[in-house]
């Protein structure tokens, strides 16, 4: 298996955030994690990146156990995360933001190429290159943080609520960019979303989390038509 969570539990003080969560991902897949606020979606991503320590279970990536590594080592292995709420460096230029993403890389030429690639993907970033990232619109900031994560040349990218607080048009652009990154660069994606419809539309498979446990899993196309899912996550209940 390319990437796997095996029976992961995470606690914060006394509160159990994740309980016995298992999840798999094949190389090249987009896997969606859906569920309500506080269901454990973000905790799952934090456990993967090493920001939170699992109290039980194992995480494997590319044949290597990673749940005891520190965040920098995990980034070095090729896992990048785009945190929720965008989190650009507000008082840094867009360019410096992007360069921070390439912190562990030494190949100047490759970094320059990847900068150009970011501009090709999001032309708006090139216009705003010298501007402070904090002064950008929400959609532009999302472009910055996605590009920043890509600057590390990851094999697996974790996206935490990339559509949060964005206008529907912008959500569509971001969704398109995610699919593009996956198809053209061959980067695997774990997508955490409250916008379940968007997440199910662009992902191959999905897991639904409920109070820290996996409640349901399946092919995204099937889940999109599943009555239970429609009722719980898509808000389409017709009684």
């Amino acid at each position: 298996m390319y990437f796997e969570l095996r029976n992961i539990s995470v606690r914060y003080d006394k509160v159990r955030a994740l309980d016995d969560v298992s999840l798999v991902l094949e190389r090249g897949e987009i896997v969606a994690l859906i569920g309500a606020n506080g269901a454990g979606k973000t905790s799952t991503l934090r456990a993967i990146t090493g920001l939170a320590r699992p109290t039980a279970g194992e995480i494997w990536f590319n044949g290597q156990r990673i749940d005891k590594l520190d965040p920098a080592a995990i980034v070095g292995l090729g896992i990048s995360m785009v945190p929720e709420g965008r989190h650009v460096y507000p008082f840094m230029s867009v360019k410096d933001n992007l360069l921070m993403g390439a912190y562990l890389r030494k190949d100047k030429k490759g970094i320059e190429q990847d900068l150009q690639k970011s501009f090709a993907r999001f032309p708006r970033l090139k216009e705003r290159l010298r501007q402070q990232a904090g002064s950008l619109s929400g959609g532009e900031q999302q472009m910055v943080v996605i590009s920043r994560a890509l600057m590390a040349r990851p094999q697996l990218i974790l996206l935490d609520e990339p559509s949060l607080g964005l206008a529907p048009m912008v959500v569509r652009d971001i969704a398109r960019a995610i699919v593009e990154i996956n198809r053209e660069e061959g980067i695997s994606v774990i997508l955490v979303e409250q916008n379940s419809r968007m997440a199910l539309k662009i992902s191959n498979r999905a897991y639904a989390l409920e109070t820290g446990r996996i409640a349901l899993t399946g092919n995204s196309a099937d889940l999109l038509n599943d009555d239970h899912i429609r009722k719980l996550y898509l808000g389409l209940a017709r009684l």
Partner: protein
Amino acid sequence: MLLNGVVLAVNYALIALGITLIFSIMNILNFAHGQMFMIGGFVVYYLYGLFGVNYFASLVAVVAVLGVIGWCFEKFFFQRMRKMATREENSMLLAVGTALLLENLALSFFGEKQRGVPPVVSGVFKIGDAFLPAGRLLVMVLALVLIVGLLLFVQYTKLGRALRALAQDREVTYLMGVNVDRIAALGFALGAALAGLAGGLLMTVFGINSGVGTVYSIKAFIMIMIGGAGIVPGAILGAVVLGFAEAIGYALLPGSITYLLIFVGLIVFLLFRPQGLMGKPWG
């Protein structure tokens, strides 16, 4: 008088930048900043004043000594504290403790005497009607060079970028693959070295004794309160304001009235603008 203001201002800027660096990166108000300044002064006193080591080599030694002290403080005190502590007050108490530690160590090793050194360069420049001793000019130029160097380093190097990143968003900086503990220790070392350098420079003008630490810590706090905590241009501006206020006050007013007025002025100022000149409002 105004020239003295300039000399003070650039050196104070060095102090203010050091404390700003530490504050913005680690959210620690470095109460020991003045004590670090004092130790920097004593390193110069012993190496240059007593043992006749070249002045510039002594300054390099200051960077080394204070860098190690700052590094150790972060590594052995603050980093541990941050992993255990649940309240922000803890870091403040610890910072006060480190200040007392340094001050008492200095008292037992260096004694309480006022120490001075022979001038590094001799001669006096006449600028208009004012006289500027060459020693003060040297101190001013060195401080300016250091400030510009620091600003360039922070703005244009990869390490400097990582320092800025850490100051703006600690958690995201983990996600960039930065070894946060190491960069934080480096930032602390750099801030401490700046305090020490200011001490090593200013002591050639005013001399040094084990008790000056608290005075300079308070001056550092005044500067960042004027400018706005954690903001680089604010720190420089605060240093300029305080440097000139002090120089003008000492020239025109009797004795200790200057600082009385500065404090009264500061209180009134903070009533109207608690976030400082360039700071953002809290909350």
